[in-house]
């Protein structure tokens, strides 16, 4: 449902972004009013088109279509000039019009095609059909999707594409203590990386939460730290090592609600005593090794091969 809405909004957005010139077919085949209907028939057949503007010099004086040709053939006349069978003074579009306005014109007039003229010179520059609008929009959508898609495709196939007995990806982030503008950045970047790698969304969520809590702990309490991620086909391993004060009582720190955080940490929205319990909840395996005065290492394993029951 969400996705459909987003897709719909995307289509609408394109209608507001694209102009006639972006999707029209330039270099229009055209005819003169003094040409014959037989000439028109050959032209339509040769170019496999169903209609064309009629030009007198530089000026668009009419539109002639396959419907006009059929009417002429049915009438039994032996020959006629295009000038006598065309629709005179056709409605035209300007090349700088937005598609959203143009679509209304298609609906209201029920014409299948419109000549497109330059807004300044009023000279014919192209032709627009509904089919060309759809083609143009598909091209535009493809362009927008392509970049992220290529990234995702490349990344998600990396394990298949590379041949080795053991395949692992290591990613490392440096953490700077008390840098609260950047705090959490590594985890959000990591979340994006995992998505690109094609990791299952529930696993991405669990790793992102565990990583963010661990990152915040390191940034809040330590002078510096390192986050390492090892991504293998069957599991993701995360290790956050910091040079901080260490945890006096690791067992108590695991209890939900237990916190030794000072007020300034709470003011930042952390220190509710849920950090380490959150990490444990998200992890399949967790290990904390801490030495007061030296630092803390939090290790987390999440198995990617099977459905986890964590957050």
């Amino acid at each position, binding site marked *: *449902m*969400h996705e459909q*809405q*987003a897709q719909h*909004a995307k289509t*609408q*957005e394109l209608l507001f972004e694209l102009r006639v010139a972006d999707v029209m077919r330039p270099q229009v085949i055209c005819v003169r009013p003094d040409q014959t209907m037989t000439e028109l028939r050959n032209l339509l057949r040769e170019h496999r088109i169903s209609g064309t503007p009629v030009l007198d010099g530089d000026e668009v004086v009419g539109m002639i279509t396959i419907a006009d040709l059929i009417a002429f053939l049915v009438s039994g006349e032996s020959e006629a000039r295009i000038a006598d069978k065309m629709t005179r003074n056709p409605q035209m579009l300007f090349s700088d019009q937005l598609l959203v306005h143009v679509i209304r014109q298609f609906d209201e007039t029920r014409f299948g095609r419109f000549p497109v003229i330059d807004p300044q010179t009023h000279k014919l520059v192209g032709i627009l059909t509904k089919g060309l609008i759809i083609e143009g929009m598909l091209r535009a959508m493809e362009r927008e999707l392509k970049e992220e898609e290529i990234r995702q495709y490349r990344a998600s196939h990396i394990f298949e594409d590379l041949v080795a007995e053991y395949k692992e990806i290591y990613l490392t982030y440096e953490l700077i203590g008390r840098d*609260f*503008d950047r*705090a*959490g*950045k590594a*985890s*959000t970047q990591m*979340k994006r990386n995992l998505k690109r790698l094609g990791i299952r969304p529930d696993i991405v*969520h669990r790793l*992102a*939460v565990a*990583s*963010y*809590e661990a990152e*915040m702990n390191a940034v809040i309490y330590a002078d510096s730290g390192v986050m390492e991620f090892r991504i293998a086909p069957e599991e993701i391993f995360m290790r956050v090592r910091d040079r901080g004060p260490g945890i006096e009582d690791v067992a108590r720190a695991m209890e939900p609600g237990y916190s030794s955080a000072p007020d300034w940490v*709470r003011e*930042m*929205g*952390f220190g*509710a*005593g*849920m*950090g380490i*319990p*959150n990490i444990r*909840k998200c992890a399949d395996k967790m290990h904390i090794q801490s030495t007061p005065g030296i630092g803390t290492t939090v290790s987390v394993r999440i198995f990617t091969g099977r459905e986890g029951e964590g*957050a």
Partner: protein
Amino acid sequence: MTLKEVAEQLSARVLAGGDEDLAAAATSVAAGDMMSDVLARADIPDVLVTGLTTVQAIRTASVAGIKTVVIVRGKPVPQPMIDLAREESIVLMVTAMKLFEACGRLWDCGLRPRAGKGKAPEA
């Protein structure tokens, strides 16, 4: 209801997010100033109502996959927070209402926590 209607109900000012973003639907809400409590939830709400005006509120939303953050009590929102919301494609708005009142209004509109015994009605 749409996020635009959420903003109207709360008389909120939208700081990040365009018309297209505001057309998205919202059915569930979570509230709190403690980011770990938000992260501890297994359910991911559409909207987070909070008094926390640091970039961490946005980071938390991004990590948890929450699309909208509403700041209460009309607190001044620092520019880096607005910038990050735009970067992470998160809708950010601020209302003068207090946390309790903002939540009450949204409850009246039919918004609910995502999990829990009571099913959220179709808004």
